[in-house]
């Protein structure tokens, strides 16, 4: 083995340690989510983001059927509250829990991913930084199990 390869083993090992060891800390402790609320533009920014998301969903043939017969104004309000609270903002989510609100909807894994893509496009359109995008997605991803297949 030459020096370059030996160096690369060390580098791969180091990156593993950094990735595995520090990711929970950076995503939950170091930020405490206080600046994510600001990075999303505060309550106004989050409400705008959810509005963009719902526009994207309405245009997405893959998932718009899930949103046909619902109260969109209420959905916008609850989703904004939820994201605001998750992002560490001064809001309290007053909606149903994720299992209850999705029971009977038959949300598939593909549907969930389509919604994530709608959110990514909305965040792009609002020029939300990649850091803030990733942090919000990391907070929402654990809901996958509560939402899919209900």
């Amino acid at each position, binding site marked *: *083995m*030459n020096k*370059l*390869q030996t160096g*690369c*083993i060390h*580098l*791969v090992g180091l*990156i*593993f340690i*950094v*990735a*595995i060891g*520090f*990711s929970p800390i*950076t*995503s939950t402790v170091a930020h405490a989510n206080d600046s994510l609320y600001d990075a999303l533009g505060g309550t106004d920014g989050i409400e705008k983001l959810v509005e963009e998301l719902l526009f994207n969903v309405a245009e997405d043939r893959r998932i718009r059927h899930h949103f046909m017969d619902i109260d969109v104004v209420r959905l916008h309000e609850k989703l904004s509250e939820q994201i605001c609270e998750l992002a560490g903002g001064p809001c309290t989510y007053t909606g149903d829990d994720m299992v209850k609100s999705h029971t009977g909807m038959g949300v*598939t*894994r*593909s549907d969930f*991913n*389509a919604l*994530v*893509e709608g959110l*990514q496009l909305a965040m792009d359109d609002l020029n939300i930084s*990649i*850091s*803030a995008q*990733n*942090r919000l*997605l*990391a907070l929402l*991803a*654990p809901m*996958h*199990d509560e939402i899919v297949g209900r």
Partner: protein
Amino acid sequence: MKIKQIVMTSALLAFLPWGAEAAEGRLLATGGATTTEGAAGGGLVPWAVISGYTEDDEMGGTVALTRAQVDDYRLDVTAASFSYKNRFEISIAAQQFTLENLGAELRQQVFGMKYRVAGDLIYTAMPQVSVGALYKRNTRYDIPELVGSQRENDWEAYIAASKVWLAGPLDRTWLANVTVRATRANQFGLLGFGGDLNDSYDVRVEAATGVFLHRSLAIGLEYRQKPNNLSFAREDDAMSAFIAWFPSKRVALVGAFLDLGSIAGADNQTGYYLNLQASF
């Protein structure tokens, strides 16, 4: 020519049944790229990811062209895969390895299957875990036999674990993969299987790690331990430093710096790697 047949078959697979409704149920880049052996992964290492973008009941797959050029050798690969339900994939790769100094070439076919047994790359706390098998067949065996290879075809088995952290260090999305492979292959199998020094299966560890600068652009490293079965020449581990671009769910492009170490007595074989993948 077998390669031509594979290209034709791949083209048919790509454009006939799924031309209109390509699989797109998964998030960008979650099918990885196509390895030199045809399985989904990085370039050198098969990952736990299932090829293409199939989710739920979708069928799909990939076709890919790869070239690796190091100082004294060149590898050209044509590969295709079929995947179903983000659960399993089957793959085929035709490899042509040119020994530029000798004006000779080696040829190998690789048939692969991979099954996701547990976890989800993104959504579960545990990593996505897949098991896979590769059947490799030398279609020109004169040179491998000459240098001491014990057989011209063989099976390999591996288990791979892949995990993504959406907001890892620096608030970037990170991926890590570890693969453990049982193998008797000499130089990926291009020089046959088993040798005069060792003719039993070795367990070898392979690893990959990467970071997404943007959700369509990743950089990373791969490392692959290899056996050392032949007395005629030392065999080194292989590594690469890659950049992968996913402009859409239809196309992926990977470029890499390769260090394959010593191959058949020629030391310090470094060079570039290019892979173009189409998904359907």
